[in-house]
């Protein structure tokens, strides 16, 4: 088990250095990627701030609570952008061109090779924005000591759930001529998750919490952090994480049976 972990870490190290070299080849693009994310983070937070200049609360949350939620979502988004996001856009192409063959013949998990191969080092730098933002708004809402300890795990939990769902959805690409459309669905689901669950009407909220639980990605961890005596949001998150991981394994194997390989 230990040697297996060591092997995967060594492969991941190679992925990182390759991605870093590639990113450094186009420095202008590298800088623009950082700027693009920062513009998005800034406008999202400022939009909420402007909105609260005219109202006291939205649903049950005041300005600081919603800004804390938004900063946690941005942190999850930033980790996802850095570690996984680019791979989703390449995956449908590798199915269509048969390049997936090269991942399947290697003695390493093909899901790992397909979704973790390309890293975006530029986005990693933006942790200098999202990290302090989470801490600042965490201080504003007066997080308890327990919540501070749980905060990194909650963010990682949200990231894992988001990507378990998105990888599961990506399996549908095996059955499509051009799977790019699935990526647009993925991006739209992220947009829905960027606002707290109580914003949505009951039917939509239930569907996006209990069927395709994208609203748990941010609302689950933040609800727990704001009130650590209520652990249910985290229980749901962990439960769905396990479920979607199992579903991913099942549909991945099913998808491989439908995969027609290169030049076919």
């Amino acid at each position, binding site marked *: 088990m230990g040697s297996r972990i060591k092997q995967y870490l060594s492969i991941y190290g190679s992925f990182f250095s390759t991605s870093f070299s590639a990113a450094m080849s*186009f420095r*202008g*693009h590298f800088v*623009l*990627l950082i*700027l*693009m994310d920062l*513009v*998005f983070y800034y*406008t999202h937070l*400022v*939009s909420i701030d*402007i*909105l609260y*200049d*005219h*109202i006291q609360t*939205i*649903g049950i949350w005041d300005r600081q609570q919603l800004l804390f939620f938004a900063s946690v979502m941005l942190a999850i988004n930033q980790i996802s952008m850095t570690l996984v996001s680019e791979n989703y856009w390449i995956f449908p192409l590798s199915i269509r061109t048969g390049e997936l063959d090269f991942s399947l013949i290697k003695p390493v998990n093909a899901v790992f090779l397909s979704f973790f191969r390309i890293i975006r080092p530029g986005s990693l730098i933006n942790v200098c924005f999202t990290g302090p933002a989470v801490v600042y708004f965490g201080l504003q809402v007066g997080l308890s000591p327990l919540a501070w300890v749980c905060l990194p795990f909650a963010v990682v939990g949200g990231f894992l759930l988001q990507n378990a769902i998105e990888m599961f959805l990506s399996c549908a690409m095996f059955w499509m*001529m*051009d799977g*790019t*459309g699935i990526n*647009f*669905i993925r*991006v*739209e689901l992220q*947009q*829905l998750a*960027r*606002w707290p669950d*109580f*914003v*949505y*009407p009951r039917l*939509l909220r239930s569907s996006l919490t209990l069927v395709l639980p994208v609203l748990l990605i941010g609302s689950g961890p933040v609800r727990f952090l704001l009130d650590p005596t209520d652990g249910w949001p985290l229980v749901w998150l962990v439960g769905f994480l396990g479920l979607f991981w199992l579903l991913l394994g099942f549909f991945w194997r099913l998808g491989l049976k439908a995969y027609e390989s290169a030049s076919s």
Partner: protein
Amino acid sequence: MNPKALWSLYLPKWGATMQVAWSNLLVYRLNFLLSAIAPLVVFLVVKLSLWYRVYEGAPSALVGGFTFSQMATYHLWVFLTSLLVFNGNATKISEDIRMGKITSYLIYPFSLWEFHGATFLARTLVQLGIAATTLTGVWAFLSGQVHFPEPHTLALGLLLTLMAAGFWFWANYLVGLIGFWMEETWTLMVMLQILAYFLSGSLIPLSFYPPWLQGLLNYTPFPAIAYLPARVLMGESAGVIQALWVLGFWNLGAALLAQLVWKKGLRLYTAAGM
């Protein structure tokens, strides 16, 4: 050359390019729906849900000068105007420059901007059809709740939107031409889109913004992308004449700049793959 001769020279080329663009759009219909329309539908769902919560229990209260019903109407118009404006495809231009594919346009009697202009027009016409269908549906289901504008108001709103679409085309085209200097330009396009959403009043009406920012934005084309057409279609036409002048200026400026950038860029073009 007289106008009739010009018309008969250019119309077939533009028409043929538009037909090709329609065929390309409809090859992968699901992708088209998911890439062009779904984001706006989801954005509308998010906004309506958010504003419903903001006004919860007091739909007649005034927030930023809007009641809930006015806010919902505002976002419906923003949805429809966004359908018409956000149609660019700058990444294709930079990719064509990188791969050396624009060489054809240097020898064809049909320039690159005309090709992309015709494609943009084709997409806008498709989106116009979708917008008209949506509007008819909404009007049929919610007649009495959504105020339908007078014909002259509708025409003014449409004129503003189409001029904003023209600006968006030139802005896209310019960003694409930066491909002469950079490998990738999609980051610039996404950045422009994020700024346009923020500065056009797509999420929050501009009347919520600080007065100094509103004053500044009056000299930019952004309010004409969403806020101004929506207000005009809701029956408020204050500031429209100034907006038309500002948009005209930005359209002309962007078009001239695009021609200049094209000429400068061509000097660097290596026609890769030739």
